[in-house]
């Protein structure tokens, strides 16, 4: 089943449960999830406990095993460059990242951090790490992305537009 990663994190996991258990029609409102932990068995990298909400018609809980997605596999052949604009932190450009890769990363899914600062050189591209939050239900790992500087404004760069020249200097004939 192709997963729609633009859905909310709990909806994604509930869809996965329902797909694996035909006849079950859980919704995110009926259950809660504990904090996911790394799992080293069963070829699934994640273990999480799903618990019934009181009054939902279900009771008790169940441990689930599944794979969270490594952020490193997401870009593929697509561009990993994002204009920085006025952004200061990763959270400021997360909407662009989500739109580019068809995701719905929220503050619970990634570790926010400052974006690097440009030095002012033309065509600057700086790396930054987008790392999954350990509590994310959907993602693990990290991916290196880039921010790119806006083109420099020539009107600013050329601060002295009145130039010292041109002067044609007569060549001096060599002495006979």
């Amino acid at each position: 089943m192709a997963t729609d990663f633009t859905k909310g994190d709990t909806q994604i996991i509930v869809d996965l449960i329902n797909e694996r258990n035909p006849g079950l029609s859980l919704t995110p409102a009926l259950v809660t999830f504990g904090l996911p932990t790394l799992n080293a068995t069963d070829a699934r990298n994640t273990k999480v406990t799903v618990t019934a909400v009181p009054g939902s018609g279900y009771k008790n809980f169940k441990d689930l095993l599944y794979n969270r997605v490594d952020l490193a596999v997401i870009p593929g052949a697509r561009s990993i460059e994002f204009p920085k604009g006025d952004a200061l932190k990763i959270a400021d450009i997360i909407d662009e990242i989500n739109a580019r890769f068809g995701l719905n990363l929220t503050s619970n899914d990634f570790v926010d951090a400052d974006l690097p600062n440009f030095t002012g050189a033309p065509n600057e591209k700086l790396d930054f790490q987008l790392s999954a939050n350990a509590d994310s239900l959907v993602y693990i790992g990290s991916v290196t992305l880039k921010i790119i500087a806006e083109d420099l404004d020539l009107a600013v760069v050329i601060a002295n537009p009145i130039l010292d020249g041109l002067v044609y200097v007569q060549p001096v004939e060599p002495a006979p």
Partner: protein
Amino acid sequence: MATIKPYAGNSLVRLIEMVNHDNPDKVIVLGVDFSIGPPLVFSGTNDRNSKALLSPLPGTRWKAPQDVFYKRLSIDVLSRLPDGFIEDVPAQPLPFSIHGILPKINAALGIDLTKEEVVDATFTALQETYPLVINETGSYAWRDSAYRFKMAELVDEIDLAIAIAQPVLNGLEYVQP
């Protein structure tokens, strides 16, 4: 959940709104302009059955305390609402107490009672209806009275550990577009 709620609202807030509604030129704010005494039984004037004493707070433009006289209702008015105004309270596992499920009672009946307004009781057996009894000394809107509410039947809960027979899931996998 009841969607039409003619008796919704905190009782004290409703009383203050009534005071300001009937005296629009002198809007007063509880805790800023005045304090209020407990709701008291009153008999004597124009069908009013209750009174409460408004006392001006120091530093306000008001001077002397003033009783307000008004009518508190019997909670049994809920039984006279048209069909659809009241819903069954969602099923609760036994035992349950009135105070413990008061938010669910409020939601089903379209009211906003506080614990101080309601006599608590614990139920250990299923009944056709359950009494919701008002504590008159704690309620600015309701008189000593009772309303018997219905509760939905408790449906056997499904064990999630059994319902999720396959806990090893097939995913997640990110597929490149």
